[in-house]
């Protein structure tokens, strides 16, 4: 039995390409994973090529053609496919441009949060003692503050802008990463292979970067993708409350907030950006789910 397996492995010239092929194959098999990748891919394309794709300038107002319904409804024109808002701005163009900020804020805030959480979590878990105490009590304090309220206050004091928004969103969501990374670190550092690294005389930095980090990164990536979804929604909530993205910048959350007043008479103003958020978030979540299965060591071979 042993021999058979070995032959199978040896006959393969390059195990790395084989592994990649296998992963691609499994992705095709997972329907939700595929759907997630397609959605995320198209939203990214939309954000990158917004100036090419958008039929109108998203900030251009046109009072004559305000609150036009989508093209398939009575009164709608094919010029404005998804209709216009209260200032006569083209909703499709605004959604296309809005993807830029929504995605950018989502990804940048996750990077900020992930970096802080990863570093502090590794330090707390690996060194323990006083480091652990200080970092984890900070985490507890942040968890005890109502997030939205805290973010509103910071944004109100510092003035709303995209960098502030990213910092505020990142600065409050790193705690999840820190807790997760710390607990994974605690379990990984007791494993024999970490002891073996100490036995060969490896320094702490090497042990953390080569032994602990690669072994906690898979859960980290999964949480990060799911967090992109949460942050897009948080950004929408903040913009909705008026302290997020400020005009003339446009984000989906801001559009949602603009459309609120017209929901009874002109439903399309708020519905389409809302749909954009839902679809993107679903795509990211599907992608995260697939990644979680894929990075699980038990799934390998």
């Amino acid at each position, binding site marked *: 039995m042993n021999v058979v397996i070995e032959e199978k492995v040896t006959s393969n010239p390059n195990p790395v390409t084989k592994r990649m092929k296998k992963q691609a194959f499994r992705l095709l098999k997972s329907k939700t994973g595929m759907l997630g990748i397609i959605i995320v891919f198209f939203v990214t394309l939309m954000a990158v090529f917004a100036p090419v794709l958008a039929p109108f300038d998203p900030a251009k107002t046109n009072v004559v053609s305000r609150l036009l319904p989508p093209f398939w409804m009575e009164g709608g024109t094919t010029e404005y496919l998804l209709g216009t808002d209260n200032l006569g701005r083209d909703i499709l163009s605004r959604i296309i441009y809005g993807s830029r900020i929504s995605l950018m804020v989502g990804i940048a805030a996750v990077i900020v949060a992930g970096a802080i959480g990863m570093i502090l979590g590794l330090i707390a878990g690996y060194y323990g003692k006083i480091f652990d105490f200080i970092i984890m009590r900070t985490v507890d304090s942040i968890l005890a503050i109502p997030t939205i309220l805290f973010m509103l206050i910071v944004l109100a004091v510092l003035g709303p802008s995209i960098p502030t928004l990213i910092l505020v969103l990142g600065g409050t969501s790193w705690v999840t990463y820190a807790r997760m990374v710390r607990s994974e670190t605690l379990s990984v550092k007791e494993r024999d292979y970490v*002891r*073996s690294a100490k036995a060969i005389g490896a320094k702490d930095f090497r042990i953390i970067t080569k032994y602990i980090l690669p072994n906690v990164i898979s859960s980290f990536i999964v949480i990060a993708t799911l967090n992109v979804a949460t942050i897009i929604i948080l950004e929408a909530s903040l913009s909705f409350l008026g302290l997020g993205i400020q005009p003339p910048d446009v984000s989906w959350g801001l559009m949602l907030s603009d459309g609120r007043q017209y929901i009874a008479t002109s439903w399309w103003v708020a519905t389409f950006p809302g749909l954009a958020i839902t679809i993107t978030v679903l795509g990211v979540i599907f992608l995260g789910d697939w990644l979680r299965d894929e990075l699980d060591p038990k799934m390998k071979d």
Partner: protein
Amino acid sequence: MEQTAILEIKNLKKHFVMTKGIIKKNTTKVRAVDGLNFDVYQGETLGIVGESGCGKSTTGQLILGLLDATEGNIYFQNRDLAVLSQEELRKARRDLQVIFQDPYSSLNPRMTVEELIGEPLVVHKLASGKKLREEVIELMKLVGLGEHQLKRFPHEFSGGQRQRIGIARALALKPKVIVCDEAVSALDVSIQAQILNLLKKLQRELGLTYVFIAHGLPAVRHISDRIGVMYLGRMVELSDRDEIFEKPLHPYTQALLDSVPIPDPKLRKEHQLIEGEIPNPSNPPSGCHFHPRCPYATDRCRQEDPEYREIMPKHFVACHHPLL
């Protein structure tokens, strides 16, 4: 032949402090290792056996410097390891290496074989680039692995092959002493023999000294020159392999030998099996730690701690009533 001691262990102790209780803190000391004295000679294999929880693995980790001793000293080539700075200790690690029990958990799953075996050389800046790869390939050949396996990950190997990777990793720094912490217990019996033979071959070729930790006497019989028996953090008997098997002096060693199954039904006899459990090391029995389970225990055993002494040339025993 007069042998030189490469490792001297003097009065080594390791106590783990445990805290219990929320309001009133109760601290209990677990005496994992409680006063060990022994030498390891250059080029020999010293087997250390004992039941689970007797402190044999802790001893191994203390020798390797993975744990700090509570008390006592370890001299490696006449140098006290405890007085070395962190940096000196890291360098001393080159001479003291370890092979772990479980080859499934002792190799970083995210590294290739090349990285795993080459890492010690990289860490100590001994080789890089092409030379590093050559050395890794040489090490792989030494332990019976092939060059084509360089880029594989540990999960692509069987237990025995993984253990070979672990051995190659330990050998990379050309150490003088290797602590084998139950190095074969997790493997299939057929693979155990292969690995033991490999270890013996390497010892002959490279002049290695082994401290071979195992939980049963039969496991170390094949490979050891001398065998030490531990009980509850202490060495109770230490002697040449054949002498331990033929003339055990401590009742515990005797009992361990009696508990070895004999694969011949005709030779079966009434065993004097040890009764009871190994006592809690945080609350060891008074006097001789073995007395509650010892068939020969007397009042003296209950009160007085037996001295660990050389009762016959090169035969150490800690017992008031050795089985002479």
